[in-house]
């Protein structure tokens, strides 16, 4: 059913991605592919996997951007350019345009927790949902001819045969920098809600009207390199020396 469920859904499951912390190691990308190629639905195929022109379906990708503030083109001048690693997977939008365009009913948003899924047995592989998503969160699997997307690891998060600690999306579980967090945004006391509030979590492309559930925490303001320099104590300076070092300083001064 491609009509959207009544909003808000009782649970609003999604991710918080901390752009201040992500180091761009692509571990989440690899673990996502690893888990999902054997998990929900058909395998995530690659085309020409050992050729020069390898490509395939991935549900999570890390882009890297350079952000240049006003005057930041010259190193050491006002504001320095910075690199921001940017993981991106389905944002499980509340007003998901990918769902309503689907002609078959394969795409749907779950009424209970808001997860956006594709029922691969119904998907005809028309690709319209990938056109409708402004974020590029859907990729066609060229071997199976069906649309693939992030399932929020639905086969992990409710999986009672797994250890409690593992009932998280594969990307969250594997992130060595702890840049990804999973939780329920409908609960204002959840860690993801609190993080979003405290750090000013933001929506991507709010102007597209999709109302994404996933939130991105902006990089913290950075001090310029020059501003950090005076903090380094200079070796010639002994003014603040105390105790033994003050005595030693005195002795060395006299001889």
């Amino acid at each position, binding site marked *: 059913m*491609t009509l959207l469920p009544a909003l808000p859904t009782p649970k609003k499951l999604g991710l918080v991605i901390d752009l201040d912390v992500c180091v761009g190691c692509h571990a989440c990308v690899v673990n996502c592919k690893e888990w999902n190629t054997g998990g929900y639905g058909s395998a995530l195929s690659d085309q020409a996997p050992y050729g020069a*022109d*390898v*490509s*395939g379906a*991935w549900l999570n*990708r890390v*882009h*890297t*951007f*350079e*952000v*240049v503030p006003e005057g*930041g083109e010259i190193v050491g001048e006002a*504001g320095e*350019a*910075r*690199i*921001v690693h940017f993981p991106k997977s389905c944002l499980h939008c509340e007003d998901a*345009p990918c*769902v*309503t*365009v*689907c*002609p*078959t*009913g*394969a795409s749907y948003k779950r009424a209970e927790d808001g997860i956006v899924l594709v029922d691969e047995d*119904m*998907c*005809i*592989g*028309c*690709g*319209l949902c*990938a*056109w*409708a*998503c*402004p*974020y*590029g969160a859907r*990729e*066609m699997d*060229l071997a*199976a*001819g*069906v*649309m693939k997307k992030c399932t929020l690891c639905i086969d992990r998060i409710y999986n009672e045969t797994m250890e409690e600690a593992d009932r998280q999306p594969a990307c969250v579980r594997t992130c060595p920098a702890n840049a990804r967090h999973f939780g329920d945004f409908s609960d204002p006391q959840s860690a993801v809600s609190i993080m979003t509030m405290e750090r000013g979590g*933001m*929506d*991507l*492309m*709010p*102007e*597209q*009207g999709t109302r994404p559930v996933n939130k*991105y925490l*902006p*990089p913290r303001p950075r001090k310029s390199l020059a501003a950090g320099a005076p903090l380094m104590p200079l070796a010639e300076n002994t003014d603040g020396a105390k105790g033994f070092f003050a005595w030693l300083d005195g002795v060395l001064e006299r001889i």
Partner: protein
Amino acid sequence: MHPAPSIIVFTTLSGLGYGLAAILGLGLLDPSLTLTKVAHVLALLMIAIGLLSSTLHLGNPQRAWRALSQWRSSWLSREGVMAILTFLPLLWSAWASVIESRYLVLPGLLGTVLAGVTVYCTAMIYASLKSVQAWHTPLTPLCYLLFAAAGGSLLGAFFAMAGRNSGLFLLLLALLFTIAAWVVKIAWRRNMDGLVPLSTPETATGLGNIGRVRLFERPHMTENYLTREMGFRIARKHAVKLRRLALLLGGLLPAALVFMLLVTTVAGAGGGLAAILAMTLAVISHIIGMLAERWLFFAEARHAVMNYYGG
């Protein structure tokens, strides 16, 4: 957007087919003439081939019937449903003409209306996508409808000429619709050329308040489904040439030929082999122009996802 041949052929052929069917539905051609019978069959064939071609790009065409189920939310589904519904009056009209040499008002007019609705649904598949800003305007369905009407009346005028009818009214329709379609299309292009991008790399990453955002590294070295499907870019100089070609072949040449035929017909010197040849040329030129126009419709449209891919 990637200009997939199957979709270009589909929108062009089904537009022509529905246009011709709509003209036939108005009863402007003598139903007992063999040529009118041929026109009925041709309209149905163009529609059918167009629809078949549209299923060529599906990953699992054997399940295509499922696409009829979500008409409450999906324009693609609505289009499928309308295409099938429209076949009923069109087949009825074709039967009446081919077998019984009759024109029936009820299926005729119903077919004309439903053909229009189907073309509208096709256009709305594109116009409803906010992620492709150039398409997201009411001018898009207006273009599709007017081009279908122009193509249909050009074909109608051709059959009228070939059947040695005067076809004055059809010639007039063809001229008016061709001009109207291109006026709206040029307005559509102006709109596209003047767009301020709704989404930018800054809004896409949320990093705009730190500074200007530029892609530093793509997620993978090679192309992927998204960049192949949505990252198509056409060189500006080629776009300009193709735009001129589309306008010339799709609009100016057919309109000029139709205008000449109109003048000669009014002067009482119409008809004859020259008129048939002129109309044949007008129709062929229009079809080639439309293929170029549809190719550009996809090739020139930019998708919001390219904000993440530096395109």
